[in-house]
């Protein structure tokens, strides 16, 4: 029996039930007990007045890299879960490109244990598609799912072999999990470091054409159709990909897709002056891509926002553009970047945003959470949507600081995060 928590006087947004109204939220024993007006205070309850704030189901991030085991100086399961909680996330899915690769039940179990030990945001492991992420032999999906894996992916690398992707999609059906793919044709993307276009031409950097992504998106859609499996397309970046996904969904193919806050807000011009904090894969593309991604997210062609939180040590990014690794951290800025650019910017409503950062990602990977329905897990976030702050990477809970948003003035901040009925973050 844990202490009950009453969130009093807030504005509740729960897209799972189209709720957008003033209400209290009562939590007990790790579950949502009720949501409604003027709820009584049970004995011994922790009461938080959240007047003027927005109460939502906790955010869910389908795509993070936590670097444990292998590079614990950059991030651990605990530090990542702490950063997640600070960002309003109650559940995050950890990609398996650790060292060693999370490609077996013991490795998956290790992530689950580290998550339990941390007791912060839930960390759901994603198992590898192939042993060692080598793209050769299928990993043991069944055992990994038993140990707690919620999906499989070779993220960081694409599944190059179409045959392997086909068998992965077919085999994953048995366990009702999605296969998440980093869509990239490696022969087209080879040694590219940014989007191929006018900016890469000017900077003299090798480009990665949008077609490198679109070709694999098209292939994955076709293989999902062939197999009846569920393919989840990671970090979409190109407008051509959006068109392919739209058509696939119209045809009823089992495809879900995600987009990152940075692909929704930045273009390849961020690479000017060889800023390695703008180096990510897939690369930042053009304004027309950003517009298409925003439109796709709004109308549900792209299901959700995922951070692709990718911590890197300072020294690694302090290098020539060619030599720096791909990736940026995002857990502590994802909500505010999206809120500032999309909601304050007038493109989305707050319920739209919560749907894309909580309800839909939970649904895509069939996770608990994403709802405040009575009886659901008590994974809850409270946002001060009037809070104005500027990004200071030195204050991050993440062990890494590699953000393209340093110094940026943002609006909106998580002030309270509750996981399984326990407060894990409070400002």
């Amino acid at each position, binding site marked *: 029996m844990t202490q009950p928590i009453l969130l009093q006087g807030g504005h509740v947004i729960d897209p799972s039930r189209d709720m957008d109204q003033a209400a209290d939220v009562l939590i007990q024993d790790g579950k949502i007990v009720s949501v409604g007006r003027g709820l009584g205070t049970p004995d011994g309850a922790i009461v938080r007045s959240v007047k003027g704030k927005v109460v939502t189901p906790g955010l869910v991030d389908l795509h993070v890299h936590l670097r444990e085991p292998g590079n614990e100086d950059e991030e651990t399961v605990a530090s990542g879960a702490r950063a997640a909680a600070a960002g309003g996330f109650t559940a995050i899915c950890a990609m398996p490109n650790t060292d060693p690769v999370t490609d077996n039940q013991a490795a998956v179990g290790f992530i689950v244990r580290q998550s339990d030990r941390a007791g912060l945001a839930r960390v759901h492991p994603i198992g590898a598609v192939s042993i060692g992420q080598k793209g050769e032999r299928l990993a043991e999906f069944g055992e990994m799912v038993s140990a707690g894996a919620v999906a499989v992916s070779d993220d960081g690398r694409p599944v190059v072999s179409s045959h392997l992707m086909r068998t992965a999609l077919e085999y994953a059906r048995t366990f009702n999990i999605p296969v998440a793919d980093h869509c990239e044709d490696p022969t087209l993307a080879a040694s590219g470091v940014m989007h191929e276009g006018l900016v890469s031409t000017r900077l003299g950097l090798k480009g990665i054409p949008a077609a490198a992504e679109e070709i694999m998106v098209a292939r994955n859609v076709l293989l999902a159709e062939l197999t009846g499996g569920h393919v989840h397309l990671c970090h979409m970046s190109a407008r051509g990909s959006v068109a392919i996904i739209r058509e696939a969904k119209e045809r009823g193919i089992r495809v879900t897709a995600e987009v990152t806050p940075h692909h929704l807000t930045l273009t390849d011009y961020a690479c000017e002056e*060889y800023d390695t904090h703008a180096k990510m894969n897939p690369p930042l593309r053009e304004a027309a891509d950003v517009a298409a991604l925003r439109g796709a997210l709004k109308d549900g062609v792209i299901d959700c926002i995922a951070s692709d939180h990718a911590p890197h040590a300072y020294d690694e990014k302090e290098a*020539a553009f060619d030599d720096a690794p791909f990736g940026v951290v995002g857990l502590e800025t994802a909500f505010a970047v999206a809120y500032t650019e999309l909601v304050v910017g007038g493109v989305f409503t707050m319920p739209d945003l919560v749907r894309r950062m909580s309800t839909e990602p939970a649904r895509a990977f069939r996770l608990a959470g994403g709802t405040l329905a009575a009886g659901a897990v008590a994974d809850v976030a409270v946002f001060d949507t009037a809070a104005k702050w500027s990004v200071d990477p030195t204050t991050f809970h993440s062990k890494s600081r590699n953000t393209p948003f340093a110094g940026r003035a943002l609006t909106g901040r998580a002030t309270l995060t509750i996981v399984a009925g326990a407060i894990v973050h409070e400002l």
Partner: protein
Amino acid sequence: MTVSATLGKDLTGLEHMTPEQIRLILDTAEPFKEVSERPIKKVPALRGKTIVNLFFEASTRTRISFEFAEKRLSADTVNVAASGSSVSKGETLVDTARNLEAMRIDMVVIRHPSSGAAEFLGHRIASNVINAGDGKHEHPTQALLDLLTIRDKHGKIAGLKVCLVGDVLHSRVARSNLWGLTKLGAEVAVCGPWTLMPRGIEELGVKVFGRIEEAIEWADVLNVLRLQLERMEKGFIPSLREYYRVFGVTPERLDRAKRDITIMHPGPMNRGVEIDSRVADGPHSIILDQVTNGVAVRMAVLYLLAGGRAELADAAKRGGPE
């Protein structure tokens, strides 16, 4: 640290320079040409200055040209090559530079295989940084010497039609030339197989010719780029033989041109691939004038970055900067 009132601290590329700055360098190079023609090829303009030539990539012509420029200005110079130095032991670029700077140097001339390396270094050390070629980005002193040589030959740059021929995709010489030429009012075109044309090149205000015959027909000046032999290995072109047959600059092709045409090449040349020997050594060629001008242009850049005033360049041949 010296920050030049006219050029700033570093020379990393022509893209962000003004036409006035470019003209200033060309004009400052003029009086320095004569120094190399003297029996005693030395002036004291940079006496007491220490310059490190930091070459992470093989170079003969550019390194020697810089070294002559430095020595003829009386600077003390040290050459550091990537192999055999701590660089090959895994030291990072920034650590290498900071260690050099701890020995109290004034300028670094850097060549590096990564685009942006010169800018990266310039932001992190107090010494003046001169880009001697960074990846596929820029090679500003090469473009400046090309501009000077074109100006010598034609008496002007504005209004001339200049075509860069060959591997524009991988060429830092092409990018720097493109910026310099357009800023000084030349019309610029590029010509080569589409596999070696960078994306979006048309958006930079240049014409694109798919056939060398069209380029020759159009141009006053052809600047023929070196075709790196590895381009064939990487599959950008099927063979050197075919490249010569389709894109090679030959006397037969030049003979069909309507007007007199000037031929340039940044070197080193692949004779019989991008350029026929009869053209390289023929009457249209000003290739060796480019090399001669390289020393004067680099003297001008070094002198200006060290704080020398352009109007005193003539006097500088006798005394130090100011």
